[in-house]
């Protein structure tokens, strides 16, 4: 382990060597991250003859502005529809997650009632059950609700099984002084008004965290749309991209373009919200 400070020991040869190794290891990591992505990006800019010709996958494309593959991927891959479906699912699942999570946290944190411990335990124990293990039976529940093969199936599943957000809200709610509730109560507000007018606006930072963490998970999820929305009309970003595998099996330039199209929004959101994204994930997983 070469953990060296650039501190006062900078001048000693050993420290210089350690610093060198540190930057070398970091550079290697960056190369390992970028290399597979760069190969796909470069391929997405090639013509089909260029892509089939056996040549170095990291060679520069003949024309850096060849966007034909993106056009093919976007139209043939029904990406516009996939984006629309994903956005629809995203908006409603986020809405549901925020409402359900904050209501549960409000009830548990601000009220004293019998079986409060039991309710908390129910949420706790549920956090132990990885949803991937229960899909065989969840499938039957979704079927029984009559939403199979509609966009409501993933929306219900995303909104209904997110224990992490309950914890993020619970954690944050504890830092909101009860005096505020009491002041509102003296002014004649009932519990619903307090929740809606006092608590929810103050939860904004927690809502932002939940929206980021959950949004990334929903945008990237493959399993649930694949299982519950098999129809091609209901493709999300993930399942629409997955369908490229058949018809474009050998056309790596088109598959690559589709892949780049799916990654690009993540990159843009990441660059725009970098700071919040890190802290969101830290509190999402740790708190």
């Amino acid at each position: 382990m070469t953990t060296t400070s650039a501190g006062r020991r900078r001048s000693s040869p050993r420290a210089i060597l350690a610093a060198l190794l540190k930057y070398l290891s970091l550079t290697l990591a960056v190369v390992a991250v970028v290399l597979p992505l760069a190969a796909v990006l470069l391929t997405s800019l090639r013509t089909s003859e260029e892509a089939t010709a056996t040549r170095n996958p990291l060679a520069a494309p003949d024309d850096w502005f060849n966007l034909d593959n993106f056009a093919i991927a976007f139209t043939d891959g029904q990406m516009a529809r996939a984006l629309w479906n994903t956005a629809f699912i995203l908006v409603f699942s986020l809405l549901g997650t925020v409402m359900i999570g904050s209501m549960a946290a409000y009830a548990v944190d601000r009220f004293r009632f019998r079986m409060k411990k039991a309710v908390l335990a129910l949420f706790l124990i549920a956090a132990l059950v990885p949803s991937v293990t229960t899909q065989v039976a969840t499938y039957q529940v979704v079927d029984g609700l009559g939403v199979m093969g509609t966009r409501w199936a993933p929306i219900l599943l995303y909104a209904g099984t997110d224990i992490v957000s309950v914890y993020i809200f619970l954690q944050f709610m504890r830092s909101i002084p009860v005096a505020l509730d009491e002041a509102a109560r003296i002014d004649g507000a009932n519990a619903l008004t307090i929740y809606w007018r006092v608590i929810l606006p103050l939860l904004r930072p927690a809502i932002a965290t939940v929206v980021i963490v959950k949004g990334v998970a929903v945008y990237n999820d493959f399993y649930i749309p694949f299982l519950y929305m098999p129809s091609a009309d209901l493709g999300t970003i993930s399942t629409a991209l997955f369908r490229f595998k058949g018809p474009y099996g050998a056309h790596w330039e088109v598959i690559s373009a589709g892949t780049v199209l799916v990654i690009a929004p993540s990159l843009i959101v990441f660059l725009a919200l970098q700071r919040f994204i890190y802290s969101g994930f830290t509190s999402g997983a740790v708190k």
Partner: protein
Amino acid sequence: MSAPPLAQARRSRAPSPGSPARSRRGPDDIRVAAGGRGWTPWAFLLVPLAFLAAFTYLPVAAMLFYSFTDWDGFSRTQDFVGADNYVELLTRPQLFRVFAVSLFYLAGAFVQLVLALYFATVLSFGTRLGNVFKGFLFFPYLINGVAIGFVFLYFFQPGGTLDTVLGALGVGPRLWLGDPDLVNTSLAGVSVWRFTGLTFVLFLGAIQSIPPHLYEAAELDGASRWQQFRHIIVPGIKPIIGLSAILAVSGSLSVFEIPFIMTGGSNNSETFVIQTIKLAFTFDKVGLASAAAVVLLALVLLVTWLQRILVPQERVEQS
């Protein structure tokens, strides 16, 4: 996003020292702001509890029930077959093969923890372009799983990117995904590529919450960086290392997406979840698949429980 395990959730209930929430644990529970009627909290809990029951508890109960039947998922009859499904699972050699596959991902998870710990430590102390490196390391975690699958299908192609790069170093081409002895190593490598960033960011956050004066004191005492790592950082972030370890083990048992997208489970790369999904939805053996899922769930719970016993959750008092 995996749910936090019990250990973590429970620890989080204790407010950090000095936070205003501390007083709520007193017997009078002065934080409770409720007035009057007893049904108000239930009105708020109605929908959350309904969802919790419908999508967690009902499936778990149903799964247990199905696991004792021969149900195919369609017919009206569900014949009770006792423990037959479990017996069939345990006597099938395939079951052990999918567990052998998990071991590759477990090894990958170990590599991931070590890499994340190394980079988190290195980037916690004045590094030029620290935020840039941080961004590069974390970004793979945000990429769509199907996109990652395609990126690496292309990367591992015969004569593809990896062969080209290794060729420059004098290593011959391999069938990264076609060779049954190599496929799981390749796939576990993809999983390391994808998840190291998340573990890294968790470790980084934990290291940054260690009070800086501890390092200053250690430095005055003449402690080397390695000694600081060994005696300040590792003990300081132990709970997060423990959490990451359980996530790693339960994650290696429930691998699905990447091998399903990249190989469809062929060439020896079938994982437990791929097998279960195939049993249930391709071969219509819901009863048998449920038994498999119950076994998986039991294993995950066992791992979490073992972690609670082996790594006692001492609360980190931040000075």
